[in-house]
């Protein structure tokens, strides 16, 4: 990939982020913060790549810690978000029934 292509992807992602988020209602701010928190756990991809190629104890420890941190970030983030949103749905159901 050329440098310009990478910069293009990054800048467009930022603009999409600005556009998509600015329409979210206040009541969903906490779940949204938690969901975006889980999404930046995509750094686990980086963790997997470095641990996968790691050689030697020091590098394996660095990679291993990154994988553990990343996994906690991704999984914990999605679980907490789902618990919050589950309540919103429960509330809807009560209202419609």
């Amino acid at each position, binding site marked *: 990939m050329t440098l310009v292509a990478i910069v293009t992807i990054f800048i467009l992602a*930022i603009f999409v982020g*600005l556009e998509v988020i600015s329409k979210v209602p206040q009541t969903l701010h906490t779940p949204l913060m938690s969901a975006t928190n889980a999404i930046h756990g995509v750094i686990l991809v980086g963790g997997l790549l470095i641990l996968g190629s790691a050689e030697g104890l020091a590098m394996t420890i660095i990679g291993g810690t990154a994988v553990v941190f990343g996994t906690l970030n991704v999984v914990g983030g999605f679980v907490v978000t789902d*618990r919050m949103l589950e309540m919103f749905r429960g509330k809807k159901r009560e209202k419609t029934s």
Partner: protein
Amino acid sequence: MNRDWIDVAYLAAAVCFILSLKLMNSPVTARKGNWVAMGGMAAALLATMLNPAIKPGNLALIAILVVLGAAAAVWSGRKIQMTAVPQMVALLNGLGGGAVTLVALYEFLEASNAGITPEPIQRVTTVLSAIIGSVSFSGSLIAFGKLQEILPGRPLTFKGQQFLNMLLVVVLAGMAVGLLTVQGSSVPLFAGLVTLALVLGVSGVLPIGGADMPVVISLLNSFTGCAAGLAGFVLMNTALLIGGGLVGASGLILTLQMCTAMNRTLGNVLFGAVGSVIASSGNSALAGRQPKSYSVEDAAILLTNANSVVIVPGYGMAVAQAQHQVKEMAAKLMAIGIDVKYAVHPVAGRMPGHMNVLLAEADVPYDQLYELEQINPLFPETDVVLVIGANDVVNPAARYDKSSPIYGMPILDVDKAKTVIVCKRGMSPGFAGVENELFLLDNTVMVFGNAKTTISKIATALDSY
């Protein structure tokens, strides 16, 4: 496996992330949105495992660490109380920041060990993602400590603190430039850079009051996203570029919206040290007054004699886990024909929407929840307002007292109601460290005690009327 297929999976993940954020625009589709993001994440992670750079010999270790990490995350994520969600988000965000720093450190060391000099863009982004990731890691841990009350929630300040932070930023910038201009690579300089960035995260968040932590966590969330996006440049990875870029942008928007809700600028939140001293009430007419303390029975009588009741929940309700008792009490009031509404201030609790989540947990119907703009015109016609553990968001000083740290923040005008009942543990000031003259007004009565105990006692007392 063909590299193209991995990139196709990353594209699918990116589309899922964007769709997920879009689905989160509405409470009806929000949960589905979270699932879509999970699907995207799974696609990105599975595709990554097909990368030929991952040695078969390391697969077992990866599997063990991912399974252990996932098990720990699912266990703690399910077990945690809903009130502790803000600090959990802070902690998870810090771990994400830490992971970014470790990835940057690894890439730096690997290039250094191999004696190669990476492309300029990669050198710059390695240094930047290490700095931002480190600030996010240590800053989030401090935010976690403040919310968990391991550290004092009050701003911790000392003379020359802002000067120290400025100095840290300047030295960090100098070191970064040094790292980028020096031939080859200097491991001690990189280690020093990471250490200093960790110190900056600590000293940057310590002087910020506990009440402002949601804004700080949201900002650090944006930082971690940004750092992850920059790590995408280092690893030439589109999943990181897009996922990180999306979160970096969205976190910033969310942060600014939180500041707007408090009628403050981001600069004021970060450097204002609001709440470091207890500001006295600006209304001298109330000086020397004592609050009126009522028993739960008296409070119950006031409630039963009302036609309309507005409940204002706050952090006190959250810490006491009193939302179920509140719902139960409200049901009893409604059963005897009293109109009950809930007034939800945008920043009540420790995070925007915190009260909505708790009331939803207790199955309070949507249509009883009123936002600030909807409920404020209704207060003059309200008989009784029941404030449960809210403080700064109902402080009338925000309307007129220019010397008050919370001056200008939109508040719930509960003091305009005929009677205000305040349930509170004691007379201590709120999270912003400001005294509240509402408690001294003629139409205000106080019921002291833990919110859960008080509300369930009131509910019991209601049975006898």
